């Protein structure tokens, strides 16, 4: 019982401090600015963006791909580590589940922001053509949202019941909400059996669903006959990139949560060390696929491909390309090879750089290809030959990122970020093992 009291004291949700309120206010302001820009986009049409006939997918789509990639963290950390019996995952899983849900929900919202007529969203389902990768995407995203929600919710039930009792006298209203969401959890054998079975099903399901989501996202591009996209490497390339983005996002959020909630006892240096090794491995695998993606075509390029590669490697996108490749992949790997590099603070900065690199990586996957069609760009204004997002696009995109952070912040505020019941069970088991 003592263990649970201490855990509750450490892990039960707490009110935001001053910094937390400022953080929430900034996010809300950014979101309001984004909503205003979006309303203007709806009224005036997508002419307010810098997307035109050629660059018809701009940062909305690269942002969407980034969210989809980040959501993969649920499959990697929760499911894969669970199926491989890596017990050290316990303090990380809840944050990973929260990031997964926030990212995939925002991916769904972001894709509708790219639609000039969002009121026709339902037509995507009504007139779905199963041959089209767009339709596969339309199907897989709600599926992943549903499974990500269940992935977060099932393991939460015992903790919600604990919080119901914990807040019974202190905050009766909050306690009632926890009670409603805990679904009358009493920890009975029947309930535990159903919960364990359900979590096992979800853990198995989310791996293929996560792989499908990333692959479909990749196939949106690779099934299109365009320079830089039409590649059989794309599915695996996107999966590797998703592991990088997801693990890096997890490291950043974990560091902030650990610091603000003072959870050093639970989220230890060992966790950062292990996540650092995982991120280094992910970056190396992603680098390997990058080499496949860029080096092989340089040997046998068509005229269009040569132009595309030149633009990326030495041309107008080269600064961004090399910054993303070296800054977002090579340097992190080198730093993570050292034990000091895998300490929490350096890991936070490395994770942040990798996340930013992952975002821009999606930008350079999408935009340069669109500006290199097979037939030369002719008969259009000069400005259509280039693309850089407009103010509306930036405001809306930054608002979606803020919205994802707001969802994470709210869930971190009201849910125990480290599973209470599971941690208690593990500590009890550990104590018993020591006694025996």
């Amino acid at each position, binding site marked *: 019982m003592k263990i649970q009291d201490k855990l509750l004291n450490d892990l039960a949700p707490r009110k935001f401090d001053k910094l937390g309120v400022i953080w929430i206010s900034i996010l809300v302001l950014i979101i309001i600015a984004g909503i205003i820009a979006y309303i203007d986009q709806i009224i005036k049409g997508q002419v307010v963006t810098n997307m035109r006939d050629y660059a018809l997918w701009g940062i909305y789509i690269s942002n969407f791909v980034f969210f989809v990639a980040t959501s993969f963290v649920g499959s990697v950390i929760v499911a894969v580590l669970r199926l491989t019996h890596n017990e050290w995952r316990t303090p990380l899983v809840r944050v990973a589940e929260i990031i997964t849900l926030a990212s995939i929900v925002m991916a769904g919202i972001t894709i509708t922001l790219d639609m000039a007529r969002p009121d026709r969203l339902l037509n995507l389902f009504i*007139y779905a*053509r*199963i*041959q089209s990768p767009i339709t596969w995407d339309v199907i897989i995203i709600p*599926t992943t949202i549903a499974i990500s929600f*269940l992935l977060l919710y099932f393991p939460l*039930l015992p903790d919600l019941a604990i919080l119901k009792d914990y807040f019974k006298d202190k905050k009766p209203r909050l306690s009632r909400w926890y009670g409603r969401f805990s679904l*009358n959890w009493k920890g*009975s054998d029947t309930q535990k059996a159903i919960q364990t079975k359900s979590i096992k099903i979800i853990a198995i399901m989310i791996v293929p*669903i996560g792989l499908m989501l990333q692959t479909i996202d990749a196939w949106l591009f690779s099934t299109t006959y365009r320079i830089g996209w039409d590649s059989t490497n794309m599915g695996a390339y996107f999966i590797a990139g998703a592991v990088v983005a997801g693990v890096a996002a997890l490291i950043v959020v974990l560091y902030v949560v650990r610091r603000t909630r003072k959870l050093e006892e639970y989220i230890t240096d060992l966790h950062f060390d292990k996540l650092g090794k995982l991120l280094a491995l992910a970056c190396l695998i992603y680098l390997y696929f990058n080499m496949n993606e860029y080096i092989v075509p340089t040997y046998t390029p068509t005229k269009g491909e040569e132009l595309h590669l030149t633009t990326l490697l030495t041309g107008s996108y080269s600064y961004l390309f090399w910054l993303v490749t070296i800054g977002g992949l090579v340097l992190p790997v080198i730093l993570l090879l050292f034990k000091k590099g895998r300490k929490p603070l350096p890991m936070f900065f490395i994770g942040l750089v990798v996340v930013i690199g992952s975002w821009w990586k999606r930008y350079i996957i999408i935009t340069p290809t669109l500006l290199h069609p097979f037939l030369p760009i002719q008969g259009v204004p000069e400005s259509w030959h280039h693309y850089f997002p407009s103010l509306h696009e930036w405001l809306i995109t930054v608002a979606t990122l803020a919205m994802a952070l707001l969802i994470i912040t709210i869930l971190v505020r009201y849910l125990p970020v480290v599973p209470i019941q599971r941690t208690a069970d593990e500590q009890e088991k550990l104590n018993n093992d020591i006694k025996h």
Partner: protein
Amino acid sequence: MKNRINFRYIFLAFLSVFVFASSFQNLNAQNAKKNKVRLKAQYIKIMGGESYIDITATSKIEKQNVRVSGIEITVYNELEEENIELGKVTTNMKGENKFIFKNFNSILADSSNIYNILISFKGNETFKKAKKRISFKNADITAKMVVKDSINYIRARLTDPNANSPIIEQDLTIQVQRLFGPLILGDEFNTTDDDGTIIVPIEEGIPGVDGNLTFEVVLNDSDDYGTIKALVTAPIGTPIIDESTFDDRKMWSPRNKTPIFLLIFPNLLIVGIWGLIVYLIINLFKISKSKN
């Protein structure tokens, strides 16, 4: 009052700028150097069809050859004593046009049976005047399909209708009409014999709509006769079979013609996954209703 005067001066100053600017422009236009126009002309005769002159107008402007559009060109029948105007044409956006002889018999030849045509551009504000002369003799090609030992041949004869004699040692080309341009059959040039005749075998298996092939026998851009073309249509091709997949279930078909395998497997996956999701949601209800 002072302000009003100032405004008048300003207005006059503006007006004078425009007046001077437009006067200078006129002066410049008068001094501007006119460009030379280069006329190209080719006489073409389609046997059993029309005879015409293909005219192209170009000019070298700032070291670049550009097509000259919208200029009026007059075509004359040039005789020893006078020039008879045959008609006028205006070049199109590509600097081209076709002058069709409405009645070829009305054109007069000189004593050597040579037709002399003068193409003339009078000149305008931008371009200097230009002329081009072409001369040609009349010639005919008669062509037909013949079969020898089950092999198809095109036999063609080039003759001078005025002298009623064969034209020898001229190179004719046999080609078959295709969608984007003719395909040459056999050798590129087939020289006419003492009888002005050539005979060229036609290979089997050339595809054609309903098996029909249109062959062209061409005397191409001859110095003496211009371009003469005779057409022969024969049903000796391999009929083109319509291979449209419009009614088939393909990856590129509309949604009502989705391939069956693509209906079965993704739908099985969707039903399987969503079945499990529904099962998990039912489990939530079971947890909620559990009394033990």
